[in-house]
């Protein structure tokens, strides 16, 4: 066998494992319906005990911040048990103005504006300032465009009492699945990630937390010195570090209570966002803190989780190499078959995405168009290419030491979509 053949087989092997793993995590939530209640929101709430500090870092969010603060101000939770801290940079006059304009209009005066200096140039730094100023025993993070469910604090309070969680990640869901050609698949990624994959990871006690609707005991958060300020995915990093502390991390995803978000507005935005995430994961990997996790299985699992972007990047080589192999290389048939197995799993994923879209629309009360399967079919492979490009770009950025924050623009389209 030639070197190219060996390369193809090696890549196929890695991708097969990866795609099977992805398949497993995608469908984990459906695996055992008899434990479904453990992953859903409680239907009856405990008496409010926990107090919450909701941190809302906002930068260039003048368009959306008012709606967000209105929503947060009227949560179904005793006003004395929660506060909202909006973190704005001093040079972001528009957002500051928008916040100042909206605060007087709010019924409960729970919202505080915390202006941070220009030197605070990324989200984790802002969050750490918020943490310093947080007064309550549980700290939560929301994004400026988020629209938390009114019962979210009731739910978190109940779950933290019932399960003694130290950390709780609630579902975040992109909603505007019809905005762009790639939106549906982007929405589905979130859907499978929060509804299913995170539950799978939680089994191992290792959860790369999301960027918002995450609730952490303040004492624990402070014990790990808050968020890492030079990691592009500070949320995922925090999850790993909390896992190292042996934190009891819970996940809840209930269509009725997820935090709604919007998909990136352009392909460029999408790729930028993904590049940042991929680079961030790799940064965490190369810090090797995961090696301190208890047990080889957990260490390997975490390492694998963190290098996923690298594996994702292999897809970009896989398709052309496989075509070359089919046309020009005389691979033994068994190996040729093997090299096609990742494509098989990819096709199964494609069908599952359709199933996911069906259940997503049912779960969120949208109508399911019969054209959607065709839409998924047409966009699936281009979308995989976007993911691969972003993964590849993340690797390049990492090797070049490029560490700037490529912030995503928010247009409030998730609210429009929801409204529609």
């Amino acid at each position, binding site marked *: 066998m030639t070197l190219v053949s060996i390369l193809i087989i090696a890549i196929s092997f890695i991708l097969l494992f990866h795609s099977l793993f992805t398949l497993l995590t995608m469908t984990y939530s459906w695996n055992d319906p008899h434990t479904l209640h453990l992953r859903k929101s409680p239907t009856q709430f405990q008496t409010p005990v926990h107090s919450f500090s909701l941190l809302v870092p906002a930068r260039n969010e003048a368009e959306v911040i008012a709606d967000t603060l209105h929503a947060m101000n009227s949560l179904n939770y005793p006003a004395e048990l929660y506060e909202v801290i909006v973190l704005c940079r001093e040079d972001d006059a528009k957002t500051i103005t928008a916040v100042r304009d909206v605060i007087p209009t709010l019924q409960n005066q729970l919202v505080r504006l915390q202006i941070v200096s220009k030197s605070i140039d990324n989200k984790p730094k802002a969050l750490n300032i918020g943490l310093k100023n947080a007064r309550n025993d549980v700290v939560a993070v929301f994004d400026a465009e988020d629209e938390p469910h009114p019962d979210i604090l009731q739910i978190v309070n109940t779950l933290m009492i019932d399960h003694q969680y130290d950390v709780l990640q609630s579902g975040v869901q992109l909603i505007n699945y019809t905005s762009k050609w790639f939106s549906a698949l982007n929405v589905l990624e979130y859907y499978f990630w929060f509804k299913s994959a995170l539950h799978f990871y939680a089994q191992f006690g290792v959860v790369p937390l999301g960027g918002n609707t995450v609730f952490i005991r303040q004492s624990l958060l402070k014990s790990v010195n808050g968020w890492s300020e030079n990691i592009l995915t500070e949320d995922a990093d925090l999850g790993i570090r909390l896992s190292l502390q042996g934190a009891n991390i819970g996940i809840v995803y209930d269509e009725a209570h997820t935090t709604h978000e919007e998909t990136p507005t352009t392909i460029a935005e999408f790729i930028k966002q993904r590049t940042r995430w991929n680079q961030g994961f790799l940064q965490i990997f190369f810090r090797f803190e995961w090696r301190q996790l208890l047990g080889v299985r957990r260490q390997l699992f975490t390492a694998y989780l963190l290098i996923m972007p690298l594996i994702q990047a292999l897809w970009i080589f896989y398709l052309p190499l496989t075509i070359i192999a089919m046309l020009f290389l005389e691979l033994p048939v068994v190996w040729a078959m093997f090299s096609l197995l990742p494509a098989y799993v990819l096709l*199964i994923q494609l069908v*599952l995405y359709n*199933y996911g879209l069906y259940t997503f629309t049912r779960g969120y009360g949208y109508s399911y168009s019969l054209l959607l399967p065709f839409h998924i079919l047409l966009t699936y492979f281009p979308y995989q290419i976007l993911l691969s490009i972003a993964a590849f770009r993340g690797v390049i950025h990492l090797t070049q030491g490029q560490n700037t924050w490529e912030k995503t623009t928010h247009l409030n389209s998730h609210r429009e979509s929801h409204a529609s």
Partner: protein
Amino acid sequence: MLRNIPFTPIRKDWVAVFLFAAVLIFVAIFHGHNMFHFPYYENDEGVYMSQAWSLVTQGKLAPYTYWYDHAPGGWIFIALWTFVTGGFYTFGFSLNTGRVFMLVLHVVSTLLLMLITRRMTRSNWAAAIAGILFSISPLGLYYQRRILLDNIMVFWGLLSYLLILRDKLKMNHVFLSALCFGIAVLTKENAVFFIPGFLLTLYLSSHSYHRYLALLKWLMISGSVISLYFLYALLKGELFPTGHLLGGTEEHVSLLGTLQYQSSRVNSSLVCETKAIWCHYQQWKKQDPFLMFVGPLANLAVLLIAFIRSRRIYAGLGLLGLGFILFLMRGGVVIDFYIVPYIPLAAAFCAICIHEGFQTFLKAFKDQSLRTGLYVLVIGSIFIGYAFLYEREYIFANPKSTYLFFQSQQTKAQLEAVQWIRDHMQPDDIIIIDNYAYIDLQDTDNPSTLVFPDAEWYWKVDQDPDVREDLLAEDPSRVDLVAQTPQMQGDLFSGSSPLTSTVINNSRIWKSFKSDGWSVEFWRPYYPHHILERSWNSYKDYSIANGKVIDLQQNQITTSEGQSYALLRAVWMNDQETFDEVLTWANQRLRNEDMLYSWRYRPDESGQIGTIDIDSATDADQDIALALLFASRRWNDDSYRIQAEKVIDAIWEHEVKEMNGKYYLLPGPWAQQYPGVVINPSYLAPYSYRIFQEVDPNHNWKSVVDTSYEVLEKCSASSLGHDTSVFLPPEWCEITPSGTARQVSVEEGLSSTDYSYNAIRVPWRVALDYQWNEDPRALVYLEKLSFLINEWQENGRISVAYRHTGEVWESYESAAAYGATIGLFMAVQPDEAERIYETQLKQKFYEDEQHSFWEDPQNYYTQNWAWFGTAMYSGNLTNLWEEM
């Protein structure tokens, strides 16, 4: 929940563990006892084992071109089994390894069936009844012992079904079930007819939360596994048939082509002719009246119960059975063992019906021990009922016998046949076999270490170009043996291998083995080259001792003629060892100082010391010289030629006479004394003199060619003192100095003018010259021998001796005479030559276990001239001087 009844996992139910263990021990003993001896090794068993063997030893899916007749899952599994158990011969004969695998699979399948029935009914006793019925059925036992893909498929199917039959079904179970089902289809494709039953079961057993995903995932995973079969074909360029837009024009096997072929095979009749389902059903019902009659009824009852009594989960199992019944009734080809996958289902249906009957009618009896007692009674009845079935005279035995499954030695004949091949055949022989013997004859690792690389399965003789074209060159005569079983006989009768049928038609039974209604017959082809080879080998054993050719009918004398014939046959047979032995003996005992050979050697009574008649006979000398020249070319050894040159020189010196400027061949040096030329026409071999001329250019051998034809013409045409002549060559003749032919009158022994044992050789020698050199004089002479042709055409026979006038002198026939005459017919009447060969040479060739001979093995003259005639007829007398 499958049922609204609490379910105790088996690990917590000691009654179930004990009961199931007891059933499994019974099943293992019942199936395992005598399983190597009954039933006979079926051809298909050999096919699957040989394909597993090919996978292990050659890395190929089949030893022959794989043509997608079945997906390979089954024999991949068998190959894995051989890895686990240490190869193909751990249990003796290679097929026994597969039978042990079937036993293990059956025991596991029984357990799976019991677990399935238990989950359905929540009853350990019902489960035990299902397991017992599944295993005790003679119909089942007959096929379950065999290495059949259906048995392996049943295992995967039951495992797959059990996985989705859970109260708390998880997607992991669905995934594993789909995987197992995919493998089941890749083992035996007819598993696809279970899909409706599986989907209904999955629908019923899954939670509403993931029901559709479960169905989707099951279909996708099993579909993906199944599609690997198509992917394999696609990557090999063998998916689409030749001639199809995507299949190209180059001839190749094709998966879709095979599927098309399989689906187009339709039963000829739906009534009761050959392969119709009704016929098979009658047959199955004979073998197990209970399961085959009650089973389908119970199947329908289970479906009814599912709806009437709200046992919804029964509907899934019922549909499995119904789907398979519809498959059997679809109108396509049904083979007897197609029933195998239905047997566990029928057993389960019966068990469920018994259970439901008890549930319905014994409600009043709360006492559990009474119910247990009734179940024990049912199980006891099953044992007693089936004991009667096993006791009856069973149809598969001859002579019929009882308890056949546990006493018969039906495979004995097959094992003896394999051993016989090892003992009697040569490794380079081409043998057509039933595939049961394939591995044990082909595998270099077989315990006997004897390998027959050209032992080929009869189905492939015509179908596989590697065998048909490369090994056999489409020539049936290349086959050395056909080992025919009754199954093979049936297949050949239906036209499975015309080439093998042709071989059989040109063969005779050589040896046969029979045991309990099954047999192996060895058919030995009688194509000319087989006859030549086998008669030569037999002649060597019988008539040649340490290089001395013995005439057993004449006081064990040895003649230079006999030595010369042996030398010629040896060189034509490419048998240098015998050639050298015979030559050495002739040189040591018969060769005179003049380099010619004494014509006769007589042993004394002890057989050790002989007396020599020192006169030489020219025919033997010239044949020895020709054989030596051939040997020099065939074996590229000049020492033979040097010796030949000396003999040729001596022949010219002593056995050729000049008269009137022409050179004539004398019968021996002694004939120099006569004023004319004494001729024995049967000595004249013009083909030899042409070669002698090349080797010995200093002498005028060409003249001897000319005089040979001249004297043949004169001696045959002349009345030689009689009233007339029918133009037959005489035994002796004299050419006078004036050039006319006359009867030799000097000595009584030379005066015979008959066409008899000497003279019969004339047509052969002239015909050989015609074959090699196309001398027109040869053809003219042969055409003039019309007397013999007329005799044959008018009387259908040629006597062994005639007077010169045409009167029959000795009226009996002899293969020697026909062998010596056949060349005449080949030149003049080729159709008659074929008839003579078939009726006089082939028919008069006999074989027993020791000898292969014409008419009488002691008659050395017949053995030689029938051989020379057969060789001439079959074109095996090549001019080695010219062609090597």
